[in-house]
Structures are given as C-alpha cells and as structure tokens.
C-alpha cells in the first residue's frame, strides 16, 4: 500500500514502514489523517463516515478499509457515469427544442433545460464531495 500521512509523525511512519508500506505524497492509495488517536482514511474524491480506524492500527484491517474505500469510490464513479449519459441526451434534445419551438412549447423546453442544468450542477457537486 502507498499512503500519505497527515501529520507524518515518527511513530506512525515507523509502524507503516515496519509493514513495508510506502509513505508518499504522489498517487497514494489513501490519505491517513491522525485525529485524537485514530486515522481517518480518505480516498479522493470520495469520503465516507466509516473511513475511520482506531489506533494502534492493525495492518490487515487498515488495508481492508482502504480497499473498501477505493471500491466505494469506483462504484460512485460508475453511478455518476450512468446518470450523466442519459442526462446528456435529455439536455441536448431540450436545447435543440429551444432552438425550434415557439410559444408555450418554447417555455416548456426552456424549463426542461433549466431543470437539466440544475441537475448537472447537483451531480457535479455530488461527484466533488463524494458520499
């Protein structure tokens, strides 16, 4: 496992290195933040309330929790992908309708565009904040 330590205390570094883990700032599997006797595990961009391990940590449990966090991140990415694809068609067709529609139809098409853009913004915030 490759992890970033925050803060990188000598004690924490010694423990991880005794397991043969790499402490790095570059492309880590997870960021471990030490707060009040526990590590919070962050796998960007998603975070999860269960991503916590109390210290002293056991290697197998920490590795399992990091893998679980990565799985959650990948599932989130797949779900966002599955939502964006149909939304692309909704928004694209609605924008085309705005170009050709008149009177009430134009208003309805504009409303679809507005609602769709709103949904896109929420999706974007969701993907940046994680679950």
């Amino acid at each position, binding site marked *: 496992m490759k992890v970033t330590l925050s803060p990188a205390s000598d004690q924490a570094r010694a423990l991880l290195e005794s397991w043969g883990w790499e402490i790095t700032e570059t492309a880590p599997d997870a960021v471990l933040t030490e707060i009040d006797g526990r590590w919070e595990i962050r796998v960007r*961009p998603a975070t999860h309330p269960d991503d916590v391990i109390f210290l002293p940590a056991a290697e197998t449990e920490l590795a399992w929790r990091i893998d679980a966090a990565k799985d959650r991140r990948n599932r989130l*990415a797949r779900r*966002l*992908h*599955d*939502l*964006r*694809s*149909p*939304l*692309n*068609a*909704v*928004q*694209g*067709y609605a*924008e*085309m309708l705005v*170009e050709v529609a008149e009177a009430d139809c134009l208003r309805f098409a504009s409303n679809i565009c507005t609602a*769709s853009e709103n949904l*896109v913004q929420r*999706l*974007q915030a969701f*993907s940046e904040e994680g679950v």
Partner: protein
Amino acid sequence: MPTVLLVEDNEMNRDMLLRRLQRKGFDVLTANDGEEALRMTRQHLPAVVLMDMSLPVLDGWEATRRLKADPSTRHIPVIALTAHALPAERDRAIEAGCCAFETKPIDFPKLLAVMEAAQK
C-alpha cells in the same frame, strides 16, 4: 464545413449530437465502437474525431492510442466526450492522445469552440 467523425455507442446521444452538428453545417460520419472508429478514420480522414471513451469491441482509450500510433491518422485531433467526470479520467484520456476532454452532458457551444481550436 469540415467532416467530423462522431464515435458514440449510445443511440440517443449519437442521434442528438449528430443532429446538432449537422444543424451547424458539419458533415458528420458516425461510428458505434472503437474498431469502427479506426476503420472510418483511416478511410475518410475526418478533420476531427469526437470519441466517446466507454465503447464496445474496442474502447475509446485504445482506439485513440492506435490512431495516434498510425502515421496516416496521428495528425487528426481526437476530442474525448465522456460521462466519466473525475479528474483521473481526464488525465487518462490525455495520456491516450486526446487533445481535449469534454464531459457529458456536453456544453455544445463550448464543444464547438474546442473543435475549432483543435483544428488550428
């Protein structure tokens, strides 16, 4: 107007973008998967390829790598169009050889600007 190859496996997304590009005056060719994209690009040498990345048969990353490895097609700009919005996906597309990365839902005016810039 230049010829554009639109590579998209989702029928509705392909139809929607095809119509929008045609309304702007582009000649648009379409492909449903990465293998077809390679064949169409080599045959027609379009000015730009709009490449969905999650494709059947051969995915968009590998199709782009092969286009960039082929001397007859490496000069053609490939723009990634993808529903994968995470920053790592952008890096992955650029590493494969894409010159730009646009996420779905597509911002159409922005896509037109990116297409114009890619051809310069």
